[in-house]
């Protein structure tokens, strides 16, 4: 197929379906709490935790843990590297879908 980009050429950290959801949501909302992300993406805390750790390890995610009214609150947002990686991922994906590559 002409113009085909094998998925291996795409950033595999972001390409995974759940992580793509996390990155897309954070790109749109700026930052979200752990509970909000679970609710929005219909994920279990364990599932979100596993995938957010992969993104954090890649340097794409900033995880901030703090106490508000004596309750722990975890806030997630994309790092500059994560924003850039998502921008590049989107460019590559659009190139493929539009068949320009």
């Amino acid at each position, binding site marked *: *197929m002409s113009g085909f980009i*094998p*998925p291996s050429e795409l950033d595999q950290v972001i390409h995974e379906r759940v992580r*793509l959801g996390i990155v897309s949501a954070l790109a749109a909302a*700026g930052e*979200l*709490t752990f*509970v909000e992300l679970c*609710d*929005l993406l219909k994920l279990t805390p364990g599932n979100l935790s596993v995938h957010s750790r992969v993104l954090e390890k890649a340097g794409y995610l900033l995880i901030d843990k703090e106490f508000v009214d004596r309750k722990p609150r975890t806030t997630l947002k994309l790092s500059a590297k994560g924003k850039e990686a998502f921008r590049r991922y989107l460019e590559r994906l659009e190139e493929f879908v539009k068949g320009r590559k």
Partner: protein
Amino acid sequence: MPSDRQQLEDRLDRIKEIMELATEYKLLPDWAAIVGGTMILIATLITYRLTGSWDVAAVFRLGENRFWLVAAMWSGSVLASILLYYVIALRDAKKLGVSLESRPSQLARRSMAPALFASAVITLRLLLDGHLGYLPGIWILGYGVALVNAGLFSTTAPRILGLLFMAVGTAAIVCFQRYDLALTGLTFGAFHVAFGCYVLSKKSA
């Protein structure tokens, strides 16, 4: 098993869908719902004090001055709530750098319109026929249907709120007509306050 091309197109659709949903999520009303609901609760209590009844029909038995006072209070509360919702939503959208005219926002608003239009037409007929006792139930039910429809383009919370309105609206029409003022306060007042608190708690959790 989808082909690679299908899989990539699916990814692009998912990105668009989630980005729109995340924007909507951040714009769910919190303080607007709490303040708006509180105004409705206050209007309900003042109306009860003036009429001594939980039946909305009692309002129409008040003297002309008091009737118009109650009508102005309810109209003012509803208009102020809608205005407040837009002011806060605009402020939040500006803060997030997004538009209120996103596709899910437009779809949500459009999907609410038919149910609200139907409620308005039924209201007109009931007013002409003098069957005023059904009005609160019709609006509670109609607003519930509108919320359930709008919730199809948002998260589950507005849909659940809509279902609660529909249940109470049905009860108000079928068996609790004499308590429709209380049910109006419960739904448009207390339910909105509870919803606003829920959204706030999610944001700060």
